[in-house]
């Protein structure tokens, strides 16, 4: 009893306990500072998604899937989508249908619907030859160069990724699908040129169903069963272009998950499907394989807190930050640098 009283009330012991408490709290604070509190994933849709509805739903599904399957995404997982009205896909298909309609003296709208549905992977009443022609047309569309207007959008989007994520010390992973890959790769090129290497290390890309040959982070997912990319490869061969990235995931049944999604190219239908049985790789679904790539991108990227050296003045102009300007407490943290060169 005497010993207990002595132990509990001794000034020295209390001092020791306080020191231990402070030490523990410091460790907690330090560990919070060391790790990213947020990971930003940017989904960039492909040209074959004419619907803003679907882009929103795909982003919802991507968020749910990442939350469920990702192992290295710590803290808040933000999914941001870019909706870029498909520049001409619908019109392109429409014009193609119109041309065919004139040839056959048929109703344009009927053919448009039929061709549009086929292009999106639906079973259609048009002939096999026409279905093949439509797929090849889609392959042409996703392979073509980005229009000039898009260059402005690439700058705008790059600025957004930089301001919202990279310069705030947050890792960012771009997840483009189909033609969105051309856009995403250009965003990477833009940021690589404009940003310091330390900040650029926070950026990664996982190229999904890419019609291009370039994977800036060395991370891509292409299904063996993706007919659209197969057509794009044939087209590249025929026109002397470099072929798209080779398939790296065998998903038998990718074209049969839904009888109406037979292209094997859909972002959610094929690439985010958890139902597709695996073929040759260890991950047990296309979704797990894709999220695994996002995980890898986050492992490879690294960020550091790099607050901007400017502030906005009362008139909204950027002015140099005065000495002693208080640190923004909402983003104050330090993330240790990752491997040299980062993900890119």
């Amino acid at each position, binding site marked *: 009893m005497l010993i207990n009283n002595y132990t509990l009330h001794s000034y020295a012991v209390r001092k020791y306990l306080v020191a231990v408490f402070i030490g523990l709290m410091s460790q907690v604070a330090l560990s919070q500072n060391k790790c990213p509190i947020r990971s930003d994933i940017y989904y960039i849709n492909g040209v074959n998604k*004419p*619907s*803003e*509805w*679907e*882009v*929103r*739903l*795909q*982003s*919802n*599904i991507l*968020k749910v899937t990442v939350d469920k399957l990702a192992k290295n995404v710590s803290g808040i997982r*933000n*999914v*941001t*989508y*870019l*909706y*870029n*009205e498909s520049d001409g896909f*619908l*019109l392109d298909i*429409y014009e193609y249908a*119109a041309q065919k309609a004139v040839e056959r003296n048929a109703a*344009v*709208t009927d053919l*448009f*619907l039929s061709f*549009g*549905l086929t292009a*999106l992977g*639906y079973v259609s009443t048009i002939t096999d030859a026409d279905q093949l022609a439509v797929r090849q047309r889609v392959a042409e569309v996703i392979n073509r160069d980005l229009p000039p207007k898009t260059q402005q*959008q690439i700058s*705008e*989007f790059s600025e*957004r990724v930089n301001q919202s994520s990279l310069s705030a010390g947050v890792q960012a992973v771009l997840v483009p699908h189909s033609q969105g890959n051309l856009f995403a790769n250009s965003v990477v090129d833009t940021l690589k040129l404009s940003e310091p290497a330390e900040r650029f290390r926070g950026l990664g890309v996982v190229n999904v169903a890419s019609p291009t040959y370039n994977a800036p982070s060395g991370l891509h997912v292409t299904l063996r069963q993706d007919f659209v990319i197969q057509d794009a490869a044939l087209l590249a061969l025929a026109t002397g272009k470099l072929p798209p990235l080779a398939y790296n995931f065998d998903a038998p049944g990718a074209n049969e998950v*839904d009888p*109406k*999604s037979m292209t094997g190219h*859909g972002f*959610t*239908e094929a690439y985010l499907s958890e139902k597709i049985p695996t073929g040759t790789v260890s991950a047990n679904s296309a979704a797990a394989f894709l999220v695994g790539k996002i995980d890898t991108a986050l492992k490879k990227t690294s960020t550091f807190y790099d607050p901007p050296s400017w502030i906005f003045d009362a008139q909204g102009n950027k002015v140099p930050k005065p000495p002693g300007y208080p640190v923004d407490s909402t983003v104050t943290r330090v993330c240790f640098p990752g491997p040299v060169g980062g993900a890119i």
Partner: protein
Amino acid sequence: MKKLTITAMLIVVNLLVACGGSSAPPQSPASATVTAVEKINGIVVPPDPGATKDDTVAGIDTDNNGIRDEIDRWIATQYGSTPGTAEAIGMLAKVGQKLMLSSPKTKTEALNIAYESIDTGGCVGDKLMKDNINAGSVFNELMLRTYNTKARINARKAVFELAGMIIRNVNDNTIICPYE
């Protein structure tokens, strides 16, 4: 006898008038309702708009529910047998038509209708997925049916051109989703 004859004639005249015996066609409210109502999968649908359905951007919407008649009929035919699904797809069809006819004048107006459409897509998509329906297929088909002429495609394109590139977090929302 004369009185009786006059009375009988009056009754006949009354009956003729009551039965529409004049030059105007018969207008029984009950029979008009019976002939106008058509149901597909138990859902009341507007009449088939016929060949003129694509003559204007707005198309034909005889029941004024914000959805073109041929699309109302398609929804009832394809999804009318699944309770709740037809209503959800109707919500999407309505916002698609609204966007097409919105003719926004400013970027803010364009963004407002674009956000409403986007968020309705997220709401209805989640509902369809819960119902084990391939939302992507429904979206694509409805999109192609809604924007099935060059004029309609251009009307939609004009909205998104004015709105510009949209960068948005999945947690942002502008509508109250009835299915959450």
